[in-house]
């Protein structure tokens, strides 16, 4: 991962957020990914989302594993803490960090290679623990850094750049997450920033594990004729199911008067998610229906996008562990060490 710094030039008319920061303050190092890489579009959406949510960059922790996708954490929010861990094992590092300091905002960026092969177990267990984090899976169906091998999300019949046809069934992260009990499951498309930004914002505000599978075409190794994760294929076959409007807490009332919403979900912090009525029968709080819908569309070769499922009531990792609300790193030593007198009493039990 390279760290080419962007020149610190700021246009005086740049919009500022509640913290007095501009969007430039949410940018990172210059990307070294291929020109046109879908991941860079996700990065841009990420910059927008963090900027709009007024998140102080140093209060965010960007976690990633290894691969093209994992590089992207370096390309947004340069003043955030970044952690490039080992291949596929970012979820455990994020779990540990979250265990220690629950007050930070955790964003994990991973890829289909990182998450669905070596990291599949860790992804599943982060979902199971319901770690409070946004997990963005930049999905291109291919190993880019090692130049074009199929990943576990490559569709049957999808062609590699060398012309080989994939024969193994793919692992769909959305169906996986739904079946494991994930509390927030969404699918986006890197080429559709308008809808990706509110989705990211909602994921960041969700208390618990928020998975967003982002179809993010690889321009160098998976954007050709025959690929099912190319820009062209995705644009032609993606179906917006439940586009999400994210209404932050402080702007709730104004926004509500502007838009009518068929389904509203109140987040833990009081902000509201609204689903515009695209498929009238679609209920984003019904897990079984969400699963069935995604499967049915998939069988027709369609990619369903949008916020597919949300459960705002289930307990996250700390709730389950019944941890104190104060971050463990801030608990003073005096409250942790029982002291000499207690040890003396305890020793009597081992006499």
């Amino acid at each position: 991962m390279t760290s080419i710094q962007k020149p610190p030039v700021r246009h005086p008319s740049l919009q500022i957020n509640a913290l007095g920061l501009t969007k430039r303050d949410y940018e990172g190092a210059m990307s070294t990914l291929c020109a046109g890489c879908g991941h860079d579009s996700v990065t841009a959406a990420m910059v927008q989302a963090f900027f709009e949510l007024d998140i102080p960059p140093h209060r965010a922790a960007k976690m990633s594993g290894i691969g093209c996708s994992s590089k992207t954490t370096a390309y947004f929010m340069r003043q955030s803490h970044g952690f490039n861990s080992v291949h596929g094992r970012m979820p455990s590092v994020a779990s540990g960090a979250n265990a220690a300091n629950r007050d930070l905002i955790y964003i994990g960026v991973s890829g289909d290679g990182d998450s669905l092969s070596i990291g599949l177990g860790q992804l599943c267990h982060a979902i199971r623990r319901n770690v409070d984090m946004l997990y963005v899976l930049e999905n291109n169906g291919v190993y880019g850094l090692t130049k074009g091998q199929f990943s576990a999300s490559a569709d049957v019949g999808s062609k590699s750049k060398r012309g080989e046809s994939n024969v193994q069934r793919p692992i769909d992260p959305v169906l996986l997450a739904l079946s494991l009990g994930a509390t927030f499951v969404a699918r986006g498309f890197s080429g559709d920033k308008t809808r990706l930004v509110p989705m990211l914002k909602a994921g960041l505000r969700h208390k618990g594990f928020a998975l967003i599978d982002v179809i993010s075409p690889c321009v160098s190794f998976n954007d050709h004729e025959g690929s099912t994760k190319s820009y062209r294929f995705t644009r032609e076959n993606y179906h917006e199911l439940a586009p999400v409007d994210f209404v932050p807490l402080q702007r709730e009332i104004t926004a509500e008067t502007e838009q009518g919403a068929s389904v509203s979900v109140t987040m833990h912090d009081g902000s509201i998610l609204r689903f515009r009525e695209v498929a009238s029968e679609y209920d984003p709080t019904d897990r079984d229906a969400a699963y069935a819908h995604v499967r049915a569309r998939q069988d027709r070769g369609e990619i369903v996008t949008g916020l597919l499922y949300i459960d705002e009531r289930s307990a996250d990792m700390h709730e389950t562990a019944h941890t104190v609300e104060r971050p463990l790193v801030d608990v003073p030593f005096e409250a942790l060490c029982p002291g000499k007198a207690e040890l003396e009493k305890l020793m009597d039990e081992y006499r």
Partner: protein
Amino acid sequence: MVNDFAFKIATVNGTGSASANGLLMQSIYRMGIPVSGKNVFPSNIQGLPTWYEIRVSKKGYTSRPAHIDLVVALNPATYAKDVSAVKRGGWLLYDSSWPLDAALARDDIQILGVPFGQLCVAAFAGDRERTLMRNIAYTGALVALLDIDMDVIGEMIREQFAKKRSLLDSNFRALHLGYDYTKKHYACPLPIRLERMNATRDQVLLDGNTAAALGCLYAGATVGAWYPITPATSLMEAFSGFCKRYRVDPETKRNNFCILQAEDELAAAGITIGAGWAGARAFTSTAGPGISLMSEFIGLAYYTEIPGVFFDIQRTGPSTGMPTRTQQADLLSIAYLSHGDTKHIALFPSSPAECFSMSVTAFDLTERFQTPVFVVSDLDIGMNDWMVPRLTWDDSYRPDRGKVLGADDLERVKRFSRYLDVDGDGIAARSLPGVHPKGAYFVRGSGHDKHAAYTEDADEYREVVDRLAKKLKTAEGAVPEPEMHRNGGKISVGIVALGGTHAALLEARDALAANGIEVDYMRIKAFPFGTVVREFLETHETIFVVEQNRDAQLRSLLAIETGLARDRMTPVLDYGGMPLTADFVTSEVTRHLEARVA
């Protein structure tokens, strides 16, 4: 033969004999007599043979006994082995409800039969109770044969079953079944018998894993991550128990700790590292197979300089090995764990008391040096009850958090460089996430420079890895120094060892001295080795390195790190999986020395 003998109880795993054996050992201990117990158990839940060895030693020796004076044989499947284990002139106590095969009889030992099974069938209803009470019945027989204080054992049974009246009655009845029968039929006590002493007053009976868990509690560890594995599981279980007792916030009733049972050891390591990075004192406990799985993450933590304590409760290897047997065979892999050039700080406790104190030291070292620290224990230390001095605590202790820049520090610096060695000791200052905007940086396992930025530049890369080497060099002076046992004057023979073999070595040294062989003994307490270790090796003409593995791993480590020729050090190796006996060391050292003279 008073207060100086060993006996062994052979039973079947899962029949409830463990509590009866514990009761026996603790009774002797409460009579003020030095005692030690070794649980030799199978890797199985129910049905396979298990043994419990108890050694009584008025001199205070606690290593595994070389000879067994009395065997209590309650498992017909191992009669042959158990009969042959009795020392010449010793005793065999067996369940005479069923006849002992004549072929197993020995005329050089005395065979005592007590029909424990029949007595319990007559006295109790139900299979489960009969099985359980048979254990208390043989305890009663031993009370008579060895002259265990009936008041002491009675008090313990009353403590144990204070709230269960029916069990209290059954236990007393069973105890007397064995006691009365034995008293009536045999001359009690035997020549091997007990007499009250006053040698255990300031001691406790404690296993290493419990003590280590207490160390983690007292050191202020808040995040524990683990995956079940023998013989390390009881460490995290004990930590969990202590946390529930001492770490629940009195006002909110919420936990001042977060223990995560991970999906595997890889995740346990990742959680530990993530928590360490975020600023918590975090640890994991595992055994050799888990250490192998953690290897990649350990390399990441070493290179990115993240603290975390890793307990390795060693068992036999390679591979799955014998999960319930002990060994010291992870030394080399721990020292240089992971790919690339790596080297780690490791501490080697020799007893539960040190498991406690070294756990605290480990957390201080891991934060001070910002690198993984290993506490290398083993099954014998971890899972057996040892007699150790009462653990003490100094309330003035405060954690050594090392060089951590707080918000004010970061406010003052012009630019924070994560990997810059300002003090020349190889240790750079770290920042914790979320504290201050200036403290933000990117942790990366890929090549990085002193500012934590990615680099593939040879000089920048070398600067970082050379500093890491310097940091570990600094650590040589900060880790615990070896414990020296010297006689003074010029002695040419030196013994080197580490960990749980210490008790056997102290005893062997006395035995060698009694045979006219004076030896200096150095117990290594930590890696990397300092100058004291090198000096000891250089100043003794003959060196024996005693360890519990096949390949003389400690000897290799000493040769690599000190440059001393390997053939200057004679290996004394015991690696069958059982705790070391003093006899083995004495005879091996004597044999080598005599061979040299010849």
